[in-house]
């Protein structure tokens, strides 16, 4: 299964209201984006990491592993800052390393804040709450269906992929092409078959167009809500203090 999703369900913050967690992670995300990258980015990243591992008890390995893919993009993208294009061709860009450092720093902090929310808040708690907003209900219900079917379809994709490997489907370049086209077509057939069967299954349960469900009541704890903006405020305060301290000296 998807590691982030699985972690979110096991999170000790599972019973916290999603809005409070959004405030907490959102404040940190804003710090990452808006504070001056030095020293704002490392300060925000450190505080986010401390909150995630120390307070929210996100499993460290899954946390860092999930950060790998986006950071690979960030590093590749930042490489371009090192060089500059001018009439005579490529040259080292003055200040390119500093710029790359700033962007990478900002991204690390921002990605960690995003992961903090994702790994403590299952989509199951978010989507049905969005579905109660007027105008968004159709969209959120569709998103909820995508979410549910995703797990069923991903499971099958995994099984089909294995079955192909068992029959030597990864042996050669030609075999890999045969495998991936077969897989993509099978996913299509399967998703639509799923939809048809779910339609039958739900109509037997009285489905006539609405997918309204009742949502687990999650108390919006006043104390947690009051604490939620603190990490962000701390990051901002600490950054400003460090900046003014270095300005004085």
């Amino acid at each position, binding site marked *: *299964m998807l590691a982030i*999703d*699985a972690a979110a*369900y096991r999170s000790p913050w*599972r019973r916290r209201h999603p809005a409070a967690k959004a405030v907490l992670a959102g404040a940190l995300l804003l710090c990452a984006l808006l504070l001056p990258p030095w020293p704002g980015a490392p300060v925000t990243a450190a505080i986010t990491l401390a909150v995630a591992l120390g307070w929210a008890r996100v499993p460290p390995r899954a946390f860092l592993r999930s950060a790998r893919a986006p950071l690979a993009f960030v590093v590749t993208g930042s490489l371009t800052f090192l060089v500059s294009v001018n009439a005579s061709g490529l040259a080292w860009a003055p200040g390119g390393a500093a710029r790359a450092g700033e962007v990478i720093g900002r991204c690390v902090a921002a990605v960690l804040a995003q992961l903090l929310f994702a790994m403590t808040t*299952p*989509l*199951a708690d978010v*989507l*049905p709450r969005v579905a109660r907003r007027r105008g968004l209900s159709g969209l959120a219900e569709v998103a*909820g*269906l995508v*979410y*549910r079917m995703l*797990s*069923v379809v991903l499971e099958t994709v995994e099984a089909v992929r294995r079955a192909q490997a068992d029959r030597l489907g990864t042996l050669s370049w030609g075999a890999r092409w045969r495998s991936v086209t077969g897989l993509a077509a099978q996913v299509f057939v399967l998703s639509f078959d*799923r939809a048809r*069967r*779910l339609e*039958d*299954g*739900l*109509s*037997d*349960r*009285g*489905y*006539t167009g*609405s*997918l*309204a*469900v*009742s*949502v*687990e009541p999650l108390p919006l704890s006043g104390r947690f809500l009051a604490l939620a903006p603190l990490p962000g405020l701390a990051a901002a305060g600490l950054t400003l203090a460090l900046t003014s301290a270095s300005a004085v000296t």
Partner: protein
Amino acid sequence: MTAVLAADRLSYSYPGAPPVFSELSLEVTQGTSLAVLGPNGGGKTTLLRLLCGGLRPMAGTVLLRGRPLSYGRVALAEFRTQVQFVHQDPDDQLFAATVRQDVSFGPLNLGLPPEAAAARVTSALEDMEILPLADQPTHLLSFGQRKRVAIAGALALRPVVLILDEPTAGLDPAGTEALLTTLERLRAGGTTIIVSTHDVDFAHRWADDAAIIARGTLHAGPADTLLTDSALLRGASLRPAWGPAVGRVLRALGGLPAAAPDPRSPEEVLALEPEPRP
């Protein structure tokens, strides 16, 4: 002893295919258990879906307490509050992210206020012994657990008749046993239960009545009689149940009193082993 649910000369065919069956009739008595057996492709699922109003017959009627089912939206919704169908594959019926959300779908569709719906959900989860799973995501549950959630989703509507398509498929013997106990308890509470299965032993153990459907024809009768009729069973790609066969031979050998019931499990057979003489 009137039929709670009845099929009167039903015919059905899928588009572009030969008829699955025609003029098929069946009566289900209130508070009893009925097992529907037959070969792969025999029409078990089709019959059950007709009985729950999910398919509309080409000809014939489905009757609930003698009143013919009309397929208007309101009539159908009313019918479904009394007759609920649980699919073979739980993934056909589970769409919500968590167990509680999913089971609440039926009660909310009924238009119950949130608190009443929540109470129904809790009692259905208790009936299926999965209350501790209430806030778990459906997609992280095991197959057997998902099956229980699907049944809870049907129970939350408090149906008079509960129809289950191959509920034991994919379950291990202990899971089958647990399900059997649950169905037994529901029936003791007054629910009429219809189950389709390939497992003649399960049917013989559990059902009052049996219906065997093969090649477009249906034979219905008391489970004890039908499930010992080798010729009929073989004609439906089934095999006789062990229990009655063993009971018959043991009685003939004097290992079982003539009036005793057939053994229902290998354990019961072993219990009949005579003490070895010293």
